[in-house]
């Protein structure tokens, strides 16, 4: 927790009187913005008044199509019910339409004589359904004719459902026409099918969802919709509505007609701007705002959501609105007066049962430089298209198979580099079976196998208000074990949030309580010459010591000061205080160094003697070609080490761990290079080096790869011609990944030099606990190769020097058997005073 923010009032009313904040609009934007303001202590700054057109609390408009299709009950889509407003001290005028804003006097006027003065005003009037100019659509009073519906509100849903199930002559099916074959129109069409209607979709463009899809994808979507029983009229312009009292049909521009009982108009949205325009704010397509979501005409007036126009763009999707709400809240509460909205990238999913479709960014390449990756299988309704610019994803259409969408959305959002193997972007290669979708997954399915957390438990946690993956993981402990389910937990949280996860700024921090990423933190530590974990909390945090952050900071100090930092042993995890791996019963495992898995007979004898003498319950070979003495009491550690007479094997920490090797060229009849000798050199060079995550290495004497060097953090493989391939970012634990080929070199020394340079770059730049397999993907192998091999950023000399200095500073921690680092270092319990 950061302390209370005392410089957070920027108003004229001083500390005592709260200022008045009036919010026009109680839709998703208005309500979310108020939530964000409350989350930033806005309840202390403002008396909040809200106006909402609809007589309800606030609901999730995105899910209205689920209401129409009968998948969800209306009661399930409410976000904030009426008691929520009361509980948060918000005065809500529900069902009261605002008629006028008087900026001169700072007042908002509502129907029925309601007047609310304001110091700050937020306009979140959203948008309304756009009704195209169709002859006969409106009656004399300007209202839609009976039988015509827009699809925008909960009331619209109720009316549409009633009409869809109305009685007809001869009990024939109700025939429904939907004007507009965009996202919402298709969702409405699917809903009407569920109500047993005969459904026709009329669309102006020659392909469906033309804003998001290219013609080829539109054609496949068309087939899928037709297979569902929807009749499509493409390239059709509706000219008029037929019927006297109520709708009996539609007439088109080409003089054809279509008989129907009801018409749903879903032809887009139109921002509600009249209130703003009437009080003199600049209105173009939407109400114009600056980067703080403020009107440039009046700094007491903010605008958010679909009615806002930012840098010429208005948004009709929900994600941008969440981003805007955060910026607005940061700014209005003065929590961050520099908060700026920079526009949003658009990604969307079609929620039509039976069709899987996601799109993001642009549907077509902009020029010849744009790379297009395309897979098309129309017969099975599958179409995948990616548009890549400068190695980054700028557009994607995924139809019929959403397996890779979570990954692609992330790559698109973060503008991260894509793997060179483009095929991997479209398909999961070499992974068995198809995953069940999140919808299909049973509620009691175990998601986190380490901590036994089910899908249902994650849902309950999200329902309880924890709306970021991190919060859910902290509360349920899902993903906090081996971490392999983190991706799935994140997907589930997103799914339960209906796609609207809260952004978590601390996710970018190196440790949660200090608002800096690793680079910023490293620079601050250097600039101020901070050498201890305590001083980091004092000088860069608010003085509060977060126990969970201590090991991460200790690790960073060790890298920054190349092992010359001021060691505070209490900042270390217990494994690093007593140099063994803690077991479930509180005992420790002892793993002596054994480079390349090579050992001497007398070492084996000593190990056996130690196991006998200290009654070690288990002696086991490890996966890293070592011998593990498991179950040693803390008190016995110094004596065990002394009797072994071998250096520490560093099998417990976030550091260089082991280097496996095969027999290599000396004995193996296939061997091409001396992998054993290289493994010994590697261990001598890197042992004891702390790193963000553990480093497991291997050397292989030939491409048969008996030592599994292709799936190691760093692996060296001998190839014909006396050369070595260096692979980085491999993994074969909870996550399996083949390493990327960094380069091919000529000698052991080159492997040590370039492998070491990679390790140092990883040490300086990876997040805490980020293994190389994530790090390499995040940075991208091409960029890594440029930095490490080609020295494109002129870092090589400094990396080599830093690694050298750090390696020289490491020492055998088992020497603490003779010189303990702290009092009672190896005591698990002390007798009390009266016993002495």
């Amino acid at each position, binding site marked *: 927790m950061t302390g209370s923010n005392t410089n957070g009032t920027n108003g004229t009313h001083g500390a005592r009187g709260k200022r008045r904040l009036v919010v026009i609009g109680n839709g998703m934007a208005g309500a979310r913005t108020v939530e964000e303001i409350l989350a930033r202590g806005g309840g202390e700054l403002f008396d909040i008044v809200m106006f909402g057109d609809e007589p309800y609390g606030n609901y999730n408009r995105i899910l209205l199509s689920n209401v129409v299709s009968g998948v969800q009950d209306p009661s399930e889509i409410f976000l904030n019910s009426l008691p929520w407003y009361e509980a948060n001290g918000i005065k809500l005028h529900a069902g009261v339409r605002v008629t006028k804003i008087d900026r001169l006097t700072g007042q908002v006027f509502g129907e029925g004589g309601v007047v609310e003065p304001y110091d700050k005003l937020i306009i979140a009037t959203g948008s309304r359904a756009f009704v195209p100019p169709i002859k006969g659509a409106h009656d004399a009073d300007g209202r839609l004719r009976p039988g015509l519906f827009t699809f925008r509100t909960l009331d619209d849903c109720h009316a549409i459902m009633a009409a869809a199930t109305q009685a007809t002559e001869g009990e024939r099916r109700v025939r429904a026409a939907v004007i507009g074959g965009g996202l919402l129109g298709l969702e409405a069409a699917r809903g009407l099918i569920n109500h047993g209607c005969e459904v026709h979709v009329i669309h102006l463009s020659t392909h469906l969802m033309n804003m998001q899809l290219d013609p080829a994808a539109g054609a496949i979507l068309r087939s899928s919709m037709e297979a569902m029983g929807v009749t499509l009229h493409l390239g059709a312009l509706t000219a008029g509505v037929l019927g006297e009292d109520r709708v009996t049909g539609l007439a088109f521009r080409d003089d054809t007609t279509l008989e129907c009982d009801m018409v749903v108009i879903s032809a887009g949205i139109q921002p509600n701007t009249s209130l703003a325009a009437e009080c003199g704010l600049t209105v173009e397509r939407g109400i114009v705002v600056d980067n703080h979501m403020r009107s440039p005409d009046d700094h007491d007036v903010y605008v958010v959501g679909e009615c806002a126009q930012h840098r010429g763009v208005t948004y009709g999707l929900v994600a941008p609105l969440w981003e805007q709400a955060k910026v607005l809240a940061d700014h209005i509460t003065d929590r961050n007066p520099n908060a700026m909205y920079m526009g949003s990238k658009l990604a969307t999913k079609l929620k039509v049962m039976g069709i899987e479709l996601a799109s993001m960014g642009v549907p077509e390449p902009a020029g010849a430089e744009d790379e297009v990756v395309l897979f098309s299988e129309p017969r099975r309704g599958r179409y995948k298209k990616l548009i890549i610019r400068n190695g980054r994803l700028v557009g994607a259409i995924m139809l019929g198979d959403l397996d890779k969408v979570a990954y692609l959305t992330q790559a698109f959002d973060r503008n991260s580099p894509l793997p060179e193997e483009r095929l991997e972007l479209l398909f999961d290669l070499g992974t068995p079976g198809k995953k069940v979708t999140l919808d299909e997954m049973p509620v009691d399915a175990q998601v986190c196998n380490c*901590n036994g957390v089910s899908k249902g438990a994650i849902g309950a946690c999200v329902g309880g208000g924890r709306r970021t993956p991190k919060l859910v993981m*902290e*509360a*349920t*402990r899902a993903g*906090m*074990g081996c971490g392999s389910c983190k991706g799935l937990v994140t997907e589930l949280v997103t799914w339960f949030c209906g796609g609207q996860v809260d952004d978590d700024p601390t996710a970018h921090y190196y440790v949660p309580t200090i608002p800096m990423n690793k680079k910023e933190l490293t620079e601050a530590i250097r600039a101020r010459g901070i050498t201890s974990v*305590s001083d980091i909390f004092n000088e860069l945090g608010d003085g*509060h*010591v*977060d*126990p*969970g*952050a*201590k*090991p991460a900071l200790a690790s960073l100090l060790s890298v920054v000061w190349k092992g010359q930092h001021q060691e*505070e*042993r*209490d*900042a270390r*995890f*217990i494994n690093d*205080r007593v140099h063994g791996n*803690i077991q*479930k*019963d*509180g*005992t420790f495992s002892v793993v002596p160094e054994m480079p390349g898995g090579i050992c001497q007979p007398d070492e084996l004898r000593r190990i056996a003697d130690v196991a006998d003498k200290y009654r070690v319950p288990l002696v086991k070979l490890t996966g890293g070609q070592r011998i593990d003495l498991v*179950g040693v*009491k803390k*008190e016995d550690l110094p004596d065990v080490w002394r009797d072994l007479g071998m250096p520490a094997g560093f099998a417990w920490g976030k550091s260089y761990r082991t280097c496996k090797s095969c027999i290599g060229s000396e004995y193996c009849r296939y061997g091409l290079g001396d992998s054993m000798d290289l493994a010994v050199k590697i261990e001598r060079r890197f042992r004891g080096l702390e790193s963000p995550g553990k480093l497991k290495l291997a050397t292989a004497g030939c491409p048969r790869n008996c030592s599994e060097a292709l799936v190691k953090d760093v692996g060296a493989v001998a190839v014909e011609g006396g050369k070595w391939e260096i692979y980085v970012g491999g993994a074969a634990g909870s996550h399996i990944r083949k390493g990327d080929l960094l380069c091919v070199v000529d000698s052991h020394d080159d492997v040590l030099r370039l492998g070491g340079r990679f390790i140092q770059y990883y040490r300086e730049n990876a997040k805490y606990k980020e293994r190389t397999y994530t790090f390499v993907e995040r940075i991208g192998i091409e960029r890594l190769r440029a930095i490490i091999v080609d020295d494109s950023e002129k870092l090589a000399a400094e990396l080599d020097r830093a690694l050298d200095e750090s390696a020289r500073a490491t020492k055998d921690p088992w020497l603490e058997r003779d010189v303990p680092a*702290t*009092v*009672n*270092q190896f*005591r*698990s*319990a*002390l*007798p*009390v*005073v*009266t016993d002495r």
Partner: protein
Amino acid sequence: MATSHKVGTVDEIPLGEGRNFDLPGHRIAVFRGRDGRVFATQSECPHRGGPLADGLLGDGALVCPLHEWRFDLTTGATENGACPIEIYRTSVADDGSISVELPTVAIRVGPLANEGDRHPPAPRAKA
């Protein structure tokens, strides 16, 4: 009712760490914060019996070394609301000696926990 027990001195505990102390029939963990505060708790984590004294200590908070359960040392509460730990009131005299107030009624019935006892007690059942 509570009885005060002298357990040891602050010098016996490294700064920012914890150590177990064996009272007759009862093992407790005592922590010495870098801020000078001293806390005492039950010795095993209620989750899987992890040795709390080997945990990471922050401002009035403790993280168990086995599965990173986190406890508030002033209330004993966990972050997720399950399984709180017992907290005992402590005081430190001018000479650095630490006293811990324990309930007079023995909390645990069972064999005396000896120094170096390798077999921790079974996990405590949820209240």
